[in-house]
């Protein structure tokens, strides 16, 4: 227990992937498709990925893709447009955060993997990986994909968006 905790803290501080500790080899891979939209004015969406419990309380924010390049962190002005994530998790976070913040992504399929410290301390149980996309001069969409932790075997679950998100899949592996 102490080892797990220590490892989690160390990773949170460094924000980098470290060598897996015993019991932390499991990983969670998320594939997010950002649809190509035929609109007059297109801006890449802001996207948040977070883990929540079945009652929708947020457990951990894994990634926030927003405009990180603007001066004086001005891109943070529109983080609240990801309303669901903002209310459940974002408003209590300090962004930018190492290992969580990242630039917005172009239309297409994006695959991100989380393991080790990013998932350290995640109590065994049922969860959902939530994905929310909010686009300037566009809409907003939230998808939830259930998963169980720790994984007992490789498992994939999917959901498909209708407006701001395409296919989202979540794969957990022991």
């Amino acid at each position: 227990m102490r080892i797990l905790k220590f490892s989690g803290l160390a990773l949170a501080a460094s924000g980098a992937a470290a060598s897996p500790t015993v019991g932390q080899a499991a990983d969670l891979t998320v594939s997010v498709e950002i649809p190509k939209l035929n609109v007059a004015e297109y801006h890449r969406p802001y996207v948040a990925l977070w883990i929540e419990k079945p009652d929708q309380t947020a457990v951990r924010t894994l990634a926030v893709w927003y405009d990180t390049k603007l001066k004086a962190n001005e891109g943070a002005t529109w983080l609240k447009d990801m309303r669901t994530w903002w209310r459940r998790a974002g408003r209590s976070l300090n962004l930018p955060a190492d290992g969580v913040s990242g630039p917005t992504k172009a239309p297409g399929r994006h695959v991100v993997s989380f393991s080790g410290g990013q998932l350290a301390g995640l109590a065994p149980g049922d969860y959902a990986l939530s994905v929310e996309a909010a686009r300037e001069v566009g809409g907003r969409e939230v998808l939830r994909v259930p998963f169980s932790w720790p994984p007992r075997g490789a498992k994939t679950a999917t959901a498909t968006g209708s407006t701001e998100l395409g296919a989202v899949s979540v794969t957990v592996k022991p």
Partner: protein
Amino acid sequence: MSSALRIAAVAALLSLAAAPAAQAHRAWLLPGSTVLSGAEPWVTVDGAISNTLFYADHQPMRLDGLKAIGPDGTEVPLQNASTGKYRSTFDVKLAQPGTYKIVTATDMTMASYKIGGETKRWRGAAADVATAIPKDATDVQVSRNVRRIETFVTSGAPSTGALKPTGKGLELEPITHPNDLVASEKGRFRLLLDGKPAAGVEVEVVLGGVRYRAKGPELKIMTGGDGVFEVAWPEAGMYWIEAGVRGAPNGSAPAQNAAYIATVEVLPD
């Protein structure tokens, strides 16, 4: 028009004029947004008294006495304030994270009395009423009218430092934070009168955007014994909440009237 009818009509007009807030006119503050992110966001706010809720079509709200209170309880200056024909507008810079209360509170004493067979009216501060009414006046009626109009905006996570009740007049003590409202969850609030739970008071909750609907939604909710009322929001939107109490004169003490108005935004899930 017969003279009897004419007298009745004049009397009706006078009684209307004496009512502290005519039903048709609603006073409101309308923030451009209520939930904000980023380092130092700004909010623009309009204020007016209008016939159609949130459409400035009658009188601007007077800005003297209007304050913005920051998360630490201190006053924050209003910027770019201006009063137009139909509405006032101003900006608030949210320099520190947390919840800001924007409030205008008035305490007006009104009196009517007869002297030499003529009815006179007076309004002013409570301290001046004794000297304002002549000693030989008859039919003296005095009322004290305390009114608060509020709205709330939050940068980052909601906080409660700005929301402390003053203990004067009707106030809203949030149980659900006023900047943490979503359509799928009920909002709970406690109505206070002079700092104590206001039981059995009717609260009106009106959804904005009425111009585009035939009617409502308008809810009427009664506060419980603990002053608490619960709102099941029909949908997301900007809501106007109003409550009022009218007191009877008690001996030489004036009738105590109090009114409370708040604008809150309910977001979609």
